[in-house]
């Protein structure tokens, strides 16, 4: 089995936000929630970099560990998914997540956040693959169709990479050695406890 990961090559990201739009459209993510977003660091200063960030599908995921009802699980592909039927909307996964991935449909006063929503790596949820219930709750299940997440698939500069961790790490490594620089595989040390040394 492949170990699915995301990698954002910040030296290529042009902050076009097409990944954000593609994600929202493909998964019918409700108004007010963003499973993926682009953040610009040192905005307007020399050396600014934009990074597209969503759930990184961590190894030994912190959200999964802190969930008081154990509604999160990791699939054989290394994708972290959750059950909206079990989620009680306590908000703990957001405190534990190093990447701010979990989203809640409501503002959250009086503990009424609603069911947590986050990037599924376009892999749906616990319902049967491709079912109507799965789509309504979690959005598309492209992985079951043999496709990668749409955000990475349609990235105009191929900054955002998705796929087997070893393969995308090799692509990034080759890029860094060829062009002679790289600002790092953002989030990899925190999410997967490894960095890509070129």
């Amino acid at each position, binding site marked *: 089995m492949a170990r699915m990961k995301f990698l954002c090559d910040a030296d290529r990201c042009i902050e076009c936000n097409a990944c954000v739009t593609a994600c929202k459209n493909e998964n019918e993510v409700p108004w007010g929630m963003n499973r993926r977003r682009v953040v610009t660091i040192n905005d307007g200063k020399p050396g600014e970099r934009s990074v597209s960030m969503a759930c990184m599908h961590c190894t030994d995921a912190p959200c999964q560990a802190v969930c*008081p009802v154990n509604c999160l699980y990791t699939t054989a592909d290394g994708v972290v998914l959750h059950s909206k039927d079990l989620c009680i909307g306590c908000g703990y996964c957001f405190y534990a997540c*190093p*990447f701010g991935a979990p989203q809640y449909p409501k503002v959250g006063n009086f503990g009424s956040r609603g069911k947590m929503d986050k990037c599924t790596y376009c892999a749906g949820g616990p319902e049967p693959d491709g079912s109507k219930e799965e789509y309504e709750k979690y959005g598309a299940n492209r992985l079951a169709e043999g496709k990668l997440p749409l955000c990475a698939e349609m990235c105009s500069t191929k900054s955002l990479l998705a796929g087997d961790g070893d393969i995308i790490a090799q692509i990034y490594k080759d890029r860094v050695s060829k062009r002679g620089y790289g600002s790092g595989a953002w989030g990899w040390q925190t999410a997967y406890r490894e960095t890509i040394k070129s």
Partner: protein
Amino acid sequence: MTRGVAQIRFIAAMLAFAVMLVLAAPVGAQQPVNPTASSVKEEQLLQQLKRIQGRGTIPDTKSYVIEQPEGRDWRHFHEVTLRWIGAVSIIGMLVVLVGFYLIRGMVRLESGRSGRVLVRFNGFERLLHWMTASCFIVLAISGLNVTFGKELLLPWMGPDAFSTWSQWAKYAHNYLSFPFTMGVVLIFLMWLPGNFPNKMDVEWLKEGGGIVGHKHPPAYRFNAGQKMVYWLQVLAGGALAVSGYLLMFPFYGTNIADMQIAEIVHGIVAVLFVAIMLGHIYIGTIGMEGAFEAMWDGTVDANWAKEHHSLWLEQEEKSGKVTTPPSQGAMQAAE
């Protein structure tokens, strides 16, 4: 003449330009333009700061934090540290109480009942106490469920039933916090007179009070032990209310680190509070004869007051508040 000066100036300027070119040439030739020479690097940012933050384009400002590795530390607190603190303090307190009961047993009324009674807590005081206490019990159980539920209840309840229960527990926890906070504030105000520490408390503590020691050191309406419970519940209740409302209104003037700190304070204070209250429940029920009726019926026997609150009894006797209720008087006569 002016023309000659201009010519010299021109030549000097050309020479200076040539020197600049010569100096600049090797830099341009040896170092190709490196567009990331000054770029931010993740590693560097993480070493400088604990959090990486930038500028986003969506209204949700929380999302501008792209990386906060301290989430992993908070996870360790919540899953390991808090469980240990909770388990040691609560189970430890239970062990101490069982051991104490086996050794000391129930503290009896040494001189029996006199049949004369006096009011210890009026109706309003008891109502407030039991309102706060019942809220506390629900809050404690629903709160402990968040930390220990998935280990203790989930295996035999199953995921669906456990989620339903946890959802209701969460709502109960959130909404009962309001009457509980009101109770803590009113208890603070109501019993504040009489809970200021004084000289008697030092003596009382030296003698080990009426429960550890076997003597009956004098005390006014509240002895040093009760004053400690009073102040602990005020402080713990206050800390729980503040941290709890921060958690209930997430990200109102707080950031992710503040939310984590609020949860850490809430968790630690809560488990210690539960442990303290177990001690309070013990003394108020099986630990001491005549204590429970003070809060349930509102009255205590004069002999109980003499043994545990002698100075308070004197005050009450002076103002003529000690009475002989007809029913108990009749029972005494029949004996």
